[in-house]
């Protein structure tokens, strides 16, 4: 990451605790760029977007952030701990939506959500022993289904649910246990624009309630919905800024009125490729 970008991120994070901190993290694979010298801070109660083309290192970053992989060198800290050595209590503080969440296709969407809730310790199916904790958990599942407009479709078998419904169920599974950090790997991939808008509305509502959201996306336009955006190219962070800052980084203080975020990123990418901007000092 450029020194300037890092400084800006620090500025944005100055008032809030860092939920995720990466410091000169390297992870390379044979024939793959992986991640090279990644540094970033994700302040709490923030929607942090990681945007970049395919193969830029987004999934590698997410895997290390979740503790599924360890850096070759450098340090990754999540919720003040090494994610690679998370215990079950720390894992309960994280929610994750993979690119293609697959559960039990023969079970209903509600049943799948109950199952995921149980994996995080919510005794939601104890209807025959209705303890206070179980009632609360069942209430939480009901709220989550309502939150994602799935209450009318909860009895539908997952195999018969639409792609959008399955995606929302994945999101429900990631947040049913009310995690402090929600990691979403391309949550709107393959989702129609209307539903995409609804999902982003829900994410912003969650952010307002105090959840930190780390999201990767290929839809550059979605950068506008993030509080902070990191642009990842060839395993390196080119720039980190809030959306308006990215516009200024691309076009200066007077960007064209009709400039979209696609234009912003194309400009930044071309500048990086030609070696004229921050990619040089990453």
């Amino acid at each position: 990451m450029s020194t300037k970008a890092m400084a800006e991120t620090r500025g944005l994070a100055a008032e809030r605790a860092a939920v995720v901190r990466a410091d000169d993290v390297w992870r390379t694979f044979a024939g793959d760029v992986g991640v090279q010298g990644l540094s970033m801070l994700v302040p709490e109660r923030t929607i942090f977007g990681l945007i970049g083309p395919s193969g830029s290192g987004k999934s590698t970053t997410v895997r290390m952030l979740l503790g599924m992989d360890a850096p070759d060198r450098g340090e990754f800290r999540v919720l003040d701990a090494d994610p690679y050595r998370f215990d079950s209590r720390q894992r309960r503080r994280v929610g994750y939506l993979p690119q293609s969440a697959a559960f039990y296709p023969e079970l209903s969407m509600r049943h799948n959500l109950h199952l995921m809730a149980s994996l995080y310790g919510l005794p939601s199916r104890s209807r025959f022993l209705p303890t206070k904790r179980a009632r609360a958990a069942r209430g939480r599942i009901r709220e989550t289904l309502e939150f994602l407009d799935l209450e009318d479709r909860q009895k539908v078998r997952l195999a018969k649910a639409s792609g959008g419904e399955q995606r929302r169920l994945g999101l429900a599974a990631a947040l049913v246990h009310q995690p402090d950090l929600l990691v979403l790997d391309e949550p709107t991939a393959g989702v129609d624009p209307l539903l995409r808008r609804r999902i982003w509305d829900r994410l912003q509502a969650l952010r307002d309630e105090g959840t930190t959201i780390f999201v990767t996306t290929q839809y550059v336009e979605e950068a506008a919905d993030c509080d902070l955006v990191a642009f990842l190219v060839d395993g390196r962070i080119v720039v980190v800024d809030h959306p308006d800052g990215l516009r200024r980084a691309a076009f200066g203080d007077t960007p064209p009125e009709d400039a979209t975020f696609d234009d912003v990123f194309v400009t930044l990418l071309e500048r990086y490729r030609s070696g004229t901007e921050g990619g040089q000092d990453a």
Partner: protein
Amino acid sequence: MPSPVRVAAFARGETVSTLRQPRLLLLLILGPFLVLFLFGIGYRDTLPALSTLVVGAEDDLTAQVDAFIRDEQPASIDYRGTETDPEAGLQALRDGEVDLVIVLPDNAMAALEASEQAVIQVHHRSLDPVTNEQIAVASDIAVSQINDQVLEEVLVVAQQRTADVDAELATAREQLANLRANVDDQDIAAAQAAAAQVAPELDRLADLLESGGGVLGVVSAFGGPEDLPGRLRDAAAQLEQLAQIDGVEQLDRATATLEEVDQVVRQVQGIDPAVAVRPFALEIQAETPVAIALDTYFAPGVLALMLQHLGVTFAALALLRERRAGTLEVLQVSPASMGERLAGKSLAFLLLGAIAATGLTALIVGVFGVPLPVHWVTFIGLLALTLVASIGMGFLVAAVSRTDSQAVQTAMLLLLATIFFCGMFMPLDRILFPIRWISYALPATHGFLGLQDLMLLQQPTHPSLFVALAVIAVVTTVVARLLLPRRTEAI
């Protein structure tokens, strides 16, 4: 410390997911039953008759064998008659026109006279080991029957010859009575004349016995005095001496010898030749609680086999399904440990196995008449351990498989190995070490042996079976537990 909530969640997920597929459950229960049922009604207890041609010269032996087969009509033989040319007979075998060709020896009598066995050759072209076994057994029985028949005919001839002996015996007895009367009357001259007549008569009788076509052998076999002709000749010599001198003592000896001959002749004539050559009949009594038909025998094996296959495939596929992209990451990130996943799935498949085992047990007891287990607690414990060991094996299959196709292939290979090695089709005693260890490594082997004891023999089973199943369960689960976390690539 495993979380009961998470273990229960995995158990519930697998159970409900499977119960939502009623056709799968039905297939689990009805599938093995239908296979066994169709096998039971389609299998013939009797072996198919083998079309048979006899090749032999135009002599007595061929005629006797031909008559014998036509008279006896053995069930295992579909008789096609005789043929004199051996090459033509063997060509008929090669052309598939007959299944068996029996080649009789050219000159059996010459071999017998040389104190050698005459060899009957049986030719076949069967590939099937079971049919080969049938041919060997049937041929052995047929040769024994031919030998018996020869013996029987010898005895009949001997009995016919004893009729001649009987006539000579009556003459000798009459002449001896005359001799005794003359001796009693002190008529020495008449007595000596009578003795001179009796002595050659006894010699003739000795000759008859010696040339009696096996009469002597039969006499010995039935406890008659040894060297009877020699004793008759001694008596004749003594009577010849009597003809020259006075000797009541010699007369008494000759009378006693004649009585012995008379007794033996009566005995030989009273024997049934068929009983003499086959003095013992066979009667097999099975001391099993119920008659064991083929389907009854296989039923416990099918139950054990079904449980093993269920445990292996369900456990392996359940873990591999979790390696699908998305699910694997969700589970890796969640607080659920591998131990909780394995425990939850084991509980689910134990429950599903119990449902399937209950259904299949009810069917084999109700339809095939397999007796209820003699001890229910042992029965349930045996099935549960068989299932747990099989589930452990399924986890191991998942741990060593990269894809679900590999797991299915491995499970099929295990099933095939189980069919051959679990003792259902071939008793374990006939499998040599160290190959027999394969049998002992399969949960179905121990399940099958235990179920045979508990159901078919109605007796307690050996505790070693439980120990073996527990060892398989522990070893496979521990190894799988160690290997599975390394399987982090999505399928």
